[in-house]
Every structure is written in C-alpha cells, then in structure tokens.
C-alpha cells in the first residue's frame, strides 16, 4: 500500500484525482491542470509536497561530508543559504537532485525526491563511512507545503502571518511556532516566486486549512507541478536526470563545482565536460500541435538520434515542446522529427527553456 501525506484526507474531501507517485497516493489535480497551472502563473497556488524526503546532517565533519556527496559547493556559506545540486555515482550518473539548506555551523538539511528516499538514505549512509557525522532521516516528521505564484508573498504574510518579505531567493529561516520549529524558504519548482514551508504534520494541516479558508490560494496537484517546472526548464529526476543521465549530459554543469578538492563523481563528470558526451539534453519545438511524450523517438532524416524525456502541449505558451536526450552533434536550429504513434512530426532544436522564470531576487 502506498504511503499517504498528512493532508491525504483534505485531498479526498476536495475531490482530488489521487494517483500513486513516488510511493505515495498524491493529488494529481483538484479542478483542472490548466486552471491550476494558470493560478500559479497569475496568482497563487499551494501544493502538498509532504512526500518529499528530508534528512539532517550534523557533526564536526558535516560540511566536508556534504561537499563529498554533493556536486555544488557549500564551503563557508552563510547560515540560511540554500544550494541546488546533485548527488552522483563515481561514474557521473545521478543518484538524485536535491536542495541543501545550511541551517547552522555544521548543520545541513537535505531535501530529496520522494521516489528516491530509500535509495538516497542508503547512499548517504554508505558514503558517510569515515566521516564524523550524524544523519537524522526526518521525512516522517515533516510535512511540506509549497506556496507559489506572484501573490505568494502577500498570501504568506497576510493569511499565514509568516513574515517573508525580506527572505532572499534561495535562503531559509526558522520560525518557532508554539515551541515547534518550522523552516521557511524562498524556493520552489514552478519558475514563479514562492515559498516552501516545512513543519510538523499538525502545523502543515493547520496552514493548509487557513489557505483554503482564505480563498486566496488555489489547491494545486502534481499534474500542474510538472507542467510548470517543465516550461521553465527545471529537471525531474527519472526524466531529465537518472543513473544514466549525468548532470553534464543534462546541461547542469553549473551546479558541479570542479574547483572543489573532491566530490563523488568529480573525475567522471570533469572528463565528460572536457571531452564531451555522446548525448545531451536539448529542447524541441514542434511545428504542429501533436504532443511528444516521454520515450518517443527523435529522428534525423529517418535515423534515430535520441529520445524524449518530457513533452507537453504547453499551457503558458500555445506550443508543443519537449526536452529530449539527443546526439551532441545536433546544434540549436537543426531540424529533426519526433515519432508520435505512426507519424513523424517536424521539430526544431532549441534551448530547453520555453517560458521565462519570474523569480523575485
């Protein structure tokens, strides 16, 4: 049986379409994906993302250990700083992509993908050998909400009474609510301004109820979470990153800090970066309305040159687009075809971002 988040009963009561995702029964949509997507782009939406995994890492080697398993560089960061990056295998393949919050001197909070919790925790434990660190896996203790959209800041301040005007993009702070610690960060997965709130199940359910009662924030499911992140070029583990797709192949070298003394996968990734890779992720823009989907073949003059990782008829722009893992020889502007059922549809290679992010920095 799948796990349920602390908000499961709320989703059912709202009549959400609930489907399995990452080992959880999660709301896919409440009203319609398009309505929910537009609410986040234009106003404010809230997502239950309590399925995400969390773990604290502390101890005298915490910074050195995080730098060992993480592609980005947390050295000397101020408390409250957040980093995006990956954990990689020695061969450069991706274990997971994650956020690392620096919560104190030698105290880090890692946010990992729901579907990867078991695998990641095992990887972290195994990699910790020889480091003096304490690993506190706390996924079960935390619920998480993502409040996203141009009106997110006012909704946070006025409905939830969480001061966040001064919270800088990719930073976090802790609140003490009735003796319980709550983590709030200016982060998200939609390309809009927004916040993520981590707290006890009881706290998260209370905040959700306040948001619903206010009518100022639309409940949004994982359906639009995927269309929103896709439009702005954010990857989903399992599609754009995987054991077979390294951060370099995915075009995320900027999150691999090769000037660090070491991290797992550094040598392999550096080799990929300097010598090149056979295939890399690119954007595709189709001439027609047909919808490319994960796994569909990409062809050039009838010869297979790649495979779609994610595709949609976009919602914010009237255009069918995909991200695909294709031969590195293909350049921006090159023409290819996508095999959709029995037909092929012409497409142009473009950058893998189809809509501009609207972060408040």
């Amino acid at each position, binding site marked *: 049986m799948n796990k349920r988040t602390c908000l499961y009963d709320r989703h059912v009561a709202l009549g959400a*379409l609930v489907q399995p995702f990452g080992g959880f029964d999660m709301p896919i*949509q409440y009203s*319609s994906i*398009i309505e929910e997507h537009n609410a986040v782009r234009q106003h404010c939406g809230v997502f239950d993302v309590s399925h995400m995994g969390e773990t604290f890492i502390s101890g005298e080697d915490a910074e050195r250990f995080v730098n060992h398993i993480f592609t980005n560089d947390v050295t000397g960061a101020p408390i409250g700083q957040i980093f995006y990056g990956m954990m990689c295998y020695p061969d450069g393949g991706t274990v997971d992509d994650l956020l690392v919050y620096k919560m104190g001197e030698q105290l880090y909070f890692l946010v990992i993908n729901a579907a990867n919790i078991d695998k990641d925790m095992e990887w972290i434990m195994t990699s910790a050998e020889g480091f003096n660190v304490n690993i506190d896996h706390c996924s079960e203790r935390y619920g998480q909400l993502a409040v996203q959209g141009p009106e997110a800041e006012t909704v946070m301040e006025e409905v939830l009474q969480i001061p966040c005007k001064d919270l800088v993009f990719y930073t976090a702070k802790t609140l003490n609510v009735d003796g319980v610690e709550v983590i709030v960060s200016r982060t998200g997965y939609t390309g809009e301004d927004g916040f993520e709130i981590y707290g006890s199940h009881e706290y998260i359910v209370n905040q959700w109820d306040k948001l619903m009662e206010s009518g100022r924030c639309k409940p949004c499911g994982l*359906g639009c979470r995927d269309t929103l992140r896709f439009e702005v070029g954010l990857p989903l583990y399992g599609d754009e990153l995987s054991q077979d797709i390294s951060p370099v192949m995915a075009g995320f070298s900027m999150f691999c800090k090769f000037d660090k003394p070491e991290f797992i996968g550094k040598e392999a990734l550096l080799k990929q970066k300097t010598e090149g890779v056979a295939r890399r992720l690119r954007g595709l823009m189709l001439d027609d*309305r*047909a*919808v490319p989907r994960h796994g569909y073949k990409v062809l050039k003059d009838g010869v297979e040159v790649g495979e779609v990782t994610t595709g949609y*008829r976009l919602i914010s722009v009237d255009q069918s687009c995909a991200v695909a893992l294709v031969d590195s020889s293909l350049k921006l502007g090159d023409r290819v075809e996508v095999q959709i*059922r029995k037909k092929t549809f012409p497409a142009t290679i473009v950058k893998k971002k189809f809509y501009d992010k609207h972060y408040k920095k």
Partner: protein
Amino acid sequence: MTYFSESHEYVRVEGEFGYVGISDYAQKQLGNIVYVDMPDVDDDVEVGEVFGAVESVKAASDLLSPVSGTVVEVNESLEDSPELINQDANENWIIKVKLSDPSELESLMDEDTYNSKNQ
C-alpha cells in the same frame, strides 16, 4: 440513436452514417484535452481497432472505433480547438463514418446501459 463501447467511444447513427466521438464520462476522466490525432478522409476504420488518439495534458489515449467503415469526414474544428470535447463531448464528434456493417451496433451498449455502468 447513440451507442457506446466498453472503451468509452460513442457512435451516433444517422442513416448509413455514424458520428464517432468519446463519451462525456471519458472526457471528464481525461481532463483538459489538448490534441486530437484524427485519421484522414477515405481511411478505413475497423471495429475495435485504433483510429486515432486523444491527448490530455497528462497522457495520450488511443481511440478505438466502435464500428467498421470508411471515414467520410473529420471534425476539423478540433484541430485548433480540441477543448471543444471538454465543453460538449456529444456535440463534438471526431469522425463521421460510412458504416460497412450496421449489425456491429448490436454488440454496443445503449445510452442507459452505458450511463448506469459509468457513474
């Protein structure tokens, strides 16, 4: 008279022609429809065989023909406005077929039977 298949297509029969589309129940299950992949006029369709697909934001679903025959018209308004199916699935048929074997209709469900099965 309108008939329904187990796979949620309908055929509304008018004389020797049938208008084939998806049921209102099916459009609700699919959610926002963003593309309809239709056959060409003069293509033959076979009962129970794929003749196209309807795509929601999330996924593609094959369309299975409830009848055999020849496509005499496709609903061109769906090319630019596939969401018409969400607005009125019964009115917005997908293909018009010249029926080759009207006896096939006997194995389909009538509207009451279909509706009682799919609440």
